[in-house]
C-alpha cells in the first residue's frame, strides 16, 4: 500500500512533534525563536519567578525594532518607558547568553527582515516570535507563526510550544501579473476575497506560477500578510530561488552542512494528491493595483473601483458603517483622486530592497508633492546600506525625500512616528485598523508603487499611469 501523499505543511510539522497529546495540542519543537523588546520582558520575569533557565540560548535571537526611533539613533532614547524596554532586552539577552542586535548594531532592524537576510531563517524550520507577522518566514518553506508572551516563556524554558494542529488551506494563483502589479497587490487581493477572518484556523500554502516566479522579497510580502486573513501562517515551497537567496548568508549552513541541508530542503514539496481542508484558485489577470478603504485589511479593492456596500462584501451594516465613518469615506466613492497627507514606505511587509527599488522607479525624475509628508524607512541597516549603494538614496534626495533609520516606525504607532488624527496615509505596512498608525489616523494600505504615485501627486493615483 502506498503512503498517503503529504503536504509541505505536514512534512515540516510532523518532523517537529515531540509529543502528541490525545484530545489536546501537539508539543512542537521550535528551531528558531526571535524576540524583541515589547513582548519578551514579562516572559523573562516569568522565567525568573519560576527559577528556570533558557534551555537552548543559541536558538533564540534578539533584535530591537518596535520601540526604536528612526532618527538620531546615536542619541539616547528619549522616552523613558521605551528606553526601559530596550534596556530590558539587552540585559535579559546578556544574562541568558542570547545573541542581541540592539539599537546601533549594524545588524539591527525589524525582526522579520533581519532573520532572513542573515540566513537565520531556513527551509523546513519551525520559527516563532512574539509577533504576529512571524508568518513572513514561511516564504522559505518554514512553519512560522506569531505567539503570545506566555508562549515566549515556554520556548525560552523548553524550546517547545503546545499547538493544536491547524487545518490546511491551499491558495493557488496562476497566470501572468500585469504591468505595475506587485506581490503586495496579490496578497491584498487574496485577503479582499477571503475577508480578514477567511483563513482563521488554517495554515496556508501559496502555490502556482505567480508565487514560483516571485523573488524571495515578494514571497515574504505575501506570507507576511497571511495573518491578515486570519491564517496561523502561510508558506511557499522552497526552490532554486530560495536556495540562491540563502547561499552564502552569514548564518546559513556552509560546506558539507550546506549539501546535507540542501538535499533535505529539496524534499520539501507538497506531493500530488495531498489533502487540503480548503482550496482557492485565483487568476493573476484579475488583479489590479490594490488599495484599502476601510479599517481591516480585508476591506480592499482594485484602485480603479468604487467603495462597495456592506451587502456586497457580506459585512454587518453597523460594523461597515462604523468603519467608513472612521475613514470619512462613503459607499460608491471613487478611490482615485482622494487627497493624501502622509506616505509611509517600510515595515516588515515592504521594507526590503526590492520595495525601495520599486518606489524609486516611480519617483525618479519627479518631485514629492508639497503637501505630503513622506516617511521612508528601511527594514534594516543592511537594506539602508543597499539603498545607498544602489544610488536609490540619490533619487530620493533629488525628488525631495529624506531617508530615515531602520525600525518598525509608523507601522504601529508605538515609537515617535505617528500619523496625526484625521490625516490620510498611504502605507505599505500591513494593518489599517483604527488608530494603528496613531490615534485617529486613517490608513490606506497599498504597494510601494501606489505609495510612490501618491507621494508625487498627493492624491490616490493609479501607478500604471506613471510607469
Amino acid at each position, binding site marked *: 500500500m502506498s503512503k498517503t501523499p503529504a503536504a509541505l505543511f505536514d512534512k515540516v510539522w510532523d518532523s517537529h512533534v515531540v509529543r502528541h497529546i490525545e484530545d489536546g495540542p501537539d508539543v512542537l519543537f521550535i528551531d528558531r525563536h526571535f524576540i524583541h523588546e515589547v*513582548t519578551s520582558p514579562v516572559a523573562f520575569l516569568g522565567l525568573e519567578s519560576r527559577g528556570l533557565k533558557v534551555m537552548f540560548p543559541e536558538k533564540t535571537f534578539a533584535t530591537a525594532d518596535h520601540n526604536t526611533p528612526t532618527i538620531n539613533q546615536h542619541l539616547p532614547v528619549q522616552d523613558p518607558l521605551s528606553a526601559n524596554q530596550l534596556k530590558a532586552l539587552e540585559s535579559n539577552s546578556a544574562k541568558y547568553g542570547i545573541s542581541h542586535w540592539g539599537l546601533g548594531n549594524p545588524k539591527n532592524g525589524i525582526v522579520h527582515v533581519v532573520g532572513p537576510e542573515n540566513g537565520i531563517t531556513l527551509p523546513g524550520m519551525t520559527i516563532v516570535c512574539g509577533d504576529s507577522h512571524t508568518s513572513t518566514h514561511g516564504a522559505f518553506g518554514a512553519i512560522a507563526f506569531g505567539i503570545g508572551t*506566555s508562549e515566549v516563556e515556554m520556548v525560552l524554558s523548553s524550546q517547545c510550544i503546545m499547538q493544536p494542529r*491547524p487545518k490546511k488551506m491551499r491558495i493557488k494563483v496562476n497566470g501572468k501579473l500585469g504591468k505595475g502589479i506587485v506581490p503586495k497587490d496579490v496578497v491584498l487581493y487574496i485577503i479582499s476575497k477571503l475577508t480578514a477572518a477567511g483563513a482563521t*484556523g488554517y495554515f496556508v500554502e501559496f502555490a502556482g506560477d505567480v508565487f514560483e516566479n516571485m523573488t524571495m522579497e515578494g514571497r515574504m510580502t505575501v506570507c507576511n500578510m497571511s495573518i491578515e486573513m486570519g491564517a496561523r501562517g502561510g508558506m511557499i515551497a522552497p526552490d532554486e530561488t530560495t536556495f540562491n537567496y540563502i547561499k552564502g548568508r552569514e548564518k546559513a549552513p556552509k560546506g558539507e552542512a550546506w549539501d546535507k541541508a540542501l538535499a533535505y530542503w529539496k524534499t520539501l514539496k507538497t506531493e500530488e494528491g495531498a489533502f487540503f481542508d480548503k482550496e482557492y484558485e485565483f487568476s493573476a489577470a484579475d488583479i489590479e493595483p490594490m488599495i484599502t478603504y476601510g479599517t481591516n485589511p480585508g476591506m480592499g479593492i482594485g484602485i480603479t473601483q468604487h467603495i462597495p456596500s456592506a451587502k456586497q462584501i457580506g459585512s454587518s451594516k453597523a460594523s461597515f458603517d462604523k468603519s467608513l465613518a472612521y475613514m470619512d469615506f462613503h459607499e460608491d466613492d471613487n478611490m482615485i483622486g482622494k487627497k493624501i497627507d502622509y506616505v509611509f514606505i517600510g515595515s516588515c511587509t515592504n521594507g526590503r530592497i526590492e520595495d525601495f527599488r520599486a518606489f524609486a522607479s516611480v519617483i525618479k525624475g519627479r518631485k514629492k508633492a508639497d503637501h505630503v509628508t513622506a516617511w521612508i524607512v528601511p527594514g534594516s541597516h543592511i537594506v539602508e546600506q543597499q539603498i545607498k549603494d544602489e544610488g536609490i538614496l540619490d533619487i530620493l534626495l533629488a525628488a525631495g525625500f529624506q531617508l530615515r533609520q531602520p525600525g518598525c516606525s509608523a507601522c504601529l504607532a508605538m515609537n515617535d512616528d505617528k500619523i496625526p488624527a484625521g490625516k490620510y496615509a498611504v502605507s505599505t505596512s500591513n494593518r489599517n485598523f483604527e*488608530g494603528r498608525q496613531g490615534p485617529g489616523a486613517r490608513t490606506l494600505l497599498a504597494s510601494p508603487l501606489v505609495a510612490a504615485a501618491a507621494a508625487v501627486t498627493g492624491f490616490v493615483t493609479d501607478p500604471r499611469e506613471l510607469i
Partner: protein
Amino acid sequence: MAYDKFTVLKSTAVPMPIENVDTDQIIPARFLKATERKGFGDNLFRDWRYENDGTPKKDFVLNNPIYTGKILVGGKNFGSGSSREHAAWAIYDYGFRCVVSSFFADIFKNNSLNIGILPVQVSEAFLDKIFKAIEANPKTELEVNLPEQKITIVGDGASESFEINGYKKHNMTNGYDDIDYLQSLSSDIKTHAEKSIY
C-alpha cells in the same frame, strides 16, 4: 504564571456587538511599553473608551454603569490582528474572566487560554440571542459551566454547548499552565534537539 481555577462562572455581561474587534483596539500599541504585567486594564479599549483629553466617551459600553460583569460578549472575529498577549492581560486585569463570541482569532484564543480567560465560541444565532436578552434586560446573567462545556442565558433558560480540548479544559479547571507540563518533558525535548539538523 499560574492562574485561578475556572469551573462555573455566573455573571452579568457586557455586550459589544462589533465585528472584527482587533487587539489594537483592545489595547493600542502606545500602551505596550511596560516591562511588567500590571495595570493594563486601565487602558483597555482606550481609544473607544476615552477622548484624547481623557474624558470618558459617554456612548461607549464600558462607560455605561448599566452594564457590568465578568463576561464580555463580542461580535464575530474577536481578537484579530496583533499577537500581543497584552490584549488578554488588559481584559483580565479589567475584571473579565470569559469572552463570548461567534468566532475568535487563533492567537487571541491561545493567549486567553494561557492566562486563564475562557473564550467561549457560540453559534451566531445564540450570540444574537445573548445580545437581545441583554438589550431587553441589562441585568441578564449568563452561566458558563466549563466542566459541562455549556453556556446558559439564566432566566431565559436557553443554552448551548461549546468546545474546548480536553487538555486545556483540565488545565483551566485546575489552574495549571503549559510550562509545568513542558518541564516534565525535558528529556524527550533534548533527544529531539540532538537529531535536529538546525
